[in-house]
């Protein structure tokens, strides 16, 4: 009798202990910071980013049949099934607010890594702060080439930067020229923060190197009430390809002003940003038929990446819109980071950093057209091959590289 009681007791204790460790593991959390514009003129970007991260968390924290890293089991296996939680902070497109929020997330919320920040200007200050505290910064969607060239050890960028994007644009134009199209001049039109400055300086260099005339080179004040005089200058120069680098407000205003001044650009080749945002396309999409933009993602990618369709559907259910260039990159950045934390088996900054540096994810295990995710010594994923997409009847189709194109190119946009 007594022996049986002891056995029972021991069994019960062991069972309890098991449950206890399991409970402990479940209670254990991995906290990641995300710094985005949640108020201010780019607030919608931040709100969409939140939905993209929540979509990723659903896959990371629950067992999912998708073939993506950390999808299979619930939580992170490397940390005993710990769940990932994202803490959001608002930077209002202000680099100083971003810096302060990064400091707060690291010292008070105890985040083990930070993802951000859309605006390149904010990613600059946030990544510098992360470096100081030895916390990895995964740059999801800021595309200034200068970001990864500051000898930061804790900086990682999963997506392409503007140099890679712009190179693709000029490769594309070269290819069109080889096919007999006449493209003599380009027009640069860019906003006056680091995004526009970096994007345009790359484009200016590429244009000069490859023998395109720069018909106009216009740096404008962002969020201006009017762009009439600026558009008048574009109209006078009348470039064969207009290459704007603009956020949403300016993309809407530029398009409307061009229409009201009776100017139809021969072609638009946009550095994404505002030109692929749903509000801009809803507002002025009818005037942008045939516009080409660089992209990291296109909804019609579904055929080539099996997970992309399911992820897009999950995102759409939350956000009420398709994934775009920004949200797909945000989603992917968090997936890559979760994979690294999982492999590190720790939330220690240096260990996560080392795991990130050792990342090697094949392209099929992402939702992007990337050939793989593998960072070089500067923290740049050099395998993030960009694509060009064309806006046609309300949605985007992939047109370049020609090998992965899903539709025939329409060129020029306006004859």
């Amino acid at each position, binding site marked *: 009798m007594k022996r049986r009681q002891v056995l029972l007791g021991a069994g019960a204790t062991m069972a309890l202990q098991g449950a206890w460790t399991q409970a402990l593991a479940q209670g254990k959390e991995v906290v990641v910071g995300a710094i985005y514009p949640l108020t201010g*003129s780019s607030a919608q970007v931040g709100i969409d980013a939140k939905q993209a991260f929540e979509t990723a968390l659903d896959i990371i924290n629950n067992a999912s049949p998708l073939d993506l890293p950390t999808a299979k089991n619930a939580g992170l296996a490397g940390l005993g099934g710990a769940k990932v939680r994202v803490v959001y902070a608002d930077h209002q497109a202000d680099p100083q607010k971003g810096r302060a929020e990064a400091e707060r997330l690291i010292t008070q919320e105890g985040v083990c890594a930070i993802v951000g920040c859309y605006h390149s200007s904010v990613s600059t200050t946030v990544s510098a702060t992360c470096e100081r505290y030895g916390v990895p910064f995964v740059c999801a969607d800021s595309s200034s080439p200068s970001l990864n060239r500051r000898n930061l050890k804790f900086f990682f960028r999963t997506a392409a930067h503007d140099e890679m994007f712009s190179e693709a644009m000029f490769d594309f134009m070269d290819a069109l020229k080889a096919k007999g199209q006449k493209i003599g001049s380009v027009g640069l039109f860019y906003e006056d923060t680091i995004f526009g400055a970096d994007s345009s300086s790359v484009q200016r260099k590429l244009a000069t190197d490859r023998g395109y005339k720069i018909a106009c080179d*216009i740096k404008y004040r962002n969020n201006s009430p009017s762009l009439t*005089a600026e558009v008048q200058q574009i109209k006078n120069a009348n470039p064969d390809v207009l290459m704007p680098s603009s956020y949403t*407000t300016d993309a*809407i205003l530029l398009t*409307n002003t061009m229409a*009201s001044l009776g100017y139809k650009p021969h072609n638009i080749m946009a550095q994404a940003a505002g030109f692929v945002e749903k509000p801009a396309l809803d*507002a*002025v999409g009818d005037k942008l038929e045939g516009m080409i933009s660089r992209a990291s993602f296109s909804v019609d990618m579904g055929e080539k990446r099996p997970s992309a369709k399911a992820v897009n559907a999950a995102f759409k259910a939350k956000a009420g819109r398709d994934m775009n260039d920004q949200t797909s990159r945000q989603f992917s950045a968090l997936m890559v980071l979760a994979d690294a934390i999982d492999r590190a088996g720790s939330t220690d900054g240096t260990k996560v950093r080392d795991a990130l540096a050792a990342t090697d994810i094949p392209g099929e295990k992402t939702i992007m057209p990337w050939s793989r995710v593998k960072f070089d010594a500067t923290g740049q994923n050099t395998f993030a091959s960009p694509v060009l997409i064309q806006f046609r009847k309300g949605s985007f189709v992939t047109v370049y590289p020609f090998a992965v194109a899903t539709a025939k190119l329409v060129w020029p946009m306006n004859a």
Partner: protein
Amino acid sequence: MTASALLQVLASGLLMGLIYGLIAVGLSLIFGLMDVVNFAHGEFMMLAMYATFGCFVFFHIDPVLALPLVAAAMFVLGAGVYGGIVRHAMRVKVNAGMVQIFATFGLATFIQGAAQFLFTPDYRNIGDNGWLGGKTLELAGVYLPWPQIFGAVVSLAAFGGLYLLMKRTDFGRALEATREDKGAVALVGIDSNRVFALGWGLGAALVGVAGAVLSTFYYIHPQVGAAFATIAYITVALGGFGSVFGAFAAGIVVGLVEAVTAVVLPPAMKSMGIYALYLAIIFLRPQGLFGKL
């Protein structure tokens, strides 16, 4: 730059200038009346834009027709803000200036937050669906968008109406008198509180008209007021604080200077022209073009 291109820039600057004047005049009116700067001026305009958008989407009322409705609603809002907030802020005994600044500034932050919460930060647009949207008048190579022509005409009409109101009606005379000497008007039996409330209503209604006009060609967003409010402050300072017709003239000047600067200097520096002009005015004529010291 060809002659027709220059003409285009000037014409666009003039049209925008008239609209800037219309945006600024409400601010100037309120300041002239009671020495309070309404920092929520841009947010009033934003609310008017959403109201116009709401009329269009839910009741299919074109912005042209919605304009008086929006102005009336904004009048009520403006008078309400005076009665509910500003009147109390003016009553404090210490640091009255600061309290007034923070009262309207806080109101601005609140309205922005509430708008983002209720309307979401998505960009709205009436665009080409309205009567005027996307239509352009071409005159000898110069393109004049109809929404902006409409805006300019409304602006002229509003200033004309305001002139008549100020010079020909008892209310206008009471407004003028209260502005001159609040104590004295109380002695002759004018309720300055009532005049102030009407002044705020009128100021809000005017910026409401501007908002309705803008919504025919500009995007609508909780932050849209900020860019225009900055210009409105400069316009008011340039025209002379409190001078209604100074705001009209200064609006045109600001519109033209902005357009011309964008041609002469790199466009990123186009607001520098306005600030340079403003500084010059401050040195040469501290009271502004039409202001009184």
